[in-house]
């Protein structure tokens, strides 16, 4: 699995397409039978408590795309704080198992793991 991280609008989907995936192969729902899952942070937002249990199904994907959400002011709302931390922790777990981890900054891929 290739994990693609980066801020909003950084060029993560475009990078997935550059790997050869078409737009119709990208979905936001892990059950969809397509190789690329995007907007992982929105899945976490729906159910932060159980976010880490998504790992097995995500490891079955070719590519997982997630927004980095932890680099702003610590939110006042505890729910928002929990969402950010669970997104971060889920990405730590996925990165451990991923073959490749890429972070996109201004459209430029920075390889954090693998090739």
């Amino acid at each position: 699995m290739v994990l693609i991280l980066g801020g909003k609008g950084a060029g993560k989907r475009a990078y997935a397409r550059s790997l050869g995936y078409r737009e119709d192969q990208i979905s936001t729902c892990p059950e969809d039978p397509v190789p690329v899952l995007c907007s992982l942070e929105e899945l976490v937002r729906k159910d932060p408590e159980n976010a880490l249990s998504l790992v097995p199904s995500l490891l079955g994907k070719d590519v997982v795309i997630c927004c980095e959400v932890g680099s702003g002011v610590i939110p006042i709302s505890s729910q928002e704080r929990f969402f950010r931390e669970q997104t971060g922790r889920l990405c730590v777990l996925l990165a451990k198992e991923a073959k490749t981890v890429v972070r996109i900054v201004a459209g430029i891929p920075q390889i954090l793991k693998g090739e």
Partner: protein
Amino acid sequence: MMILLIGGSGCGKSYYGEKICVSAPAPRYYLAAMQPYGEEGEKRIARHRAMRAGKGFETIERYRDYAALKLPSKGTALLECAANLTANEMFDDNGNQSDPVERVLSGVDALLPQCETLVVITNEIGSDGIVYSPSTTDYIRALGKINAALAEKADTVIEMAAGIPILLKGELPL
């Protein structure tokens, strides 16, 4: 030797910082700057305590004024974290605001000669583009300034993303 670890929430900073300290000589001190506010704060502290259990850390809780801290003996210290310390130095218990930059930096300056290895954890908080209240904006600026000054002092600066260390300065310790 000083190592600065920077990253967002849940990026694995604490875990990596502890790993560095465990590979460095004892005694090991965990310098806890976070004030336990409410149930969530206590949970977070309990989680960090559980992570450190059995790793040979002596915990020193101190929310302000590291300039006056005398460590029992020279060893390894993990300061967690500069973002909490900055908030504590900036706002007193009555909510009065003052400039924290000098106090945070002089605190770290006082720790350095007392440690063989000092690991400082800090947060990246200036990248969300949201307009905050003037005091929060002051806090963001102060922490940005402090982070830059700490990076200047540090031998090694590492950004963490998804548990993976990204070297910004110096050499990876592990």
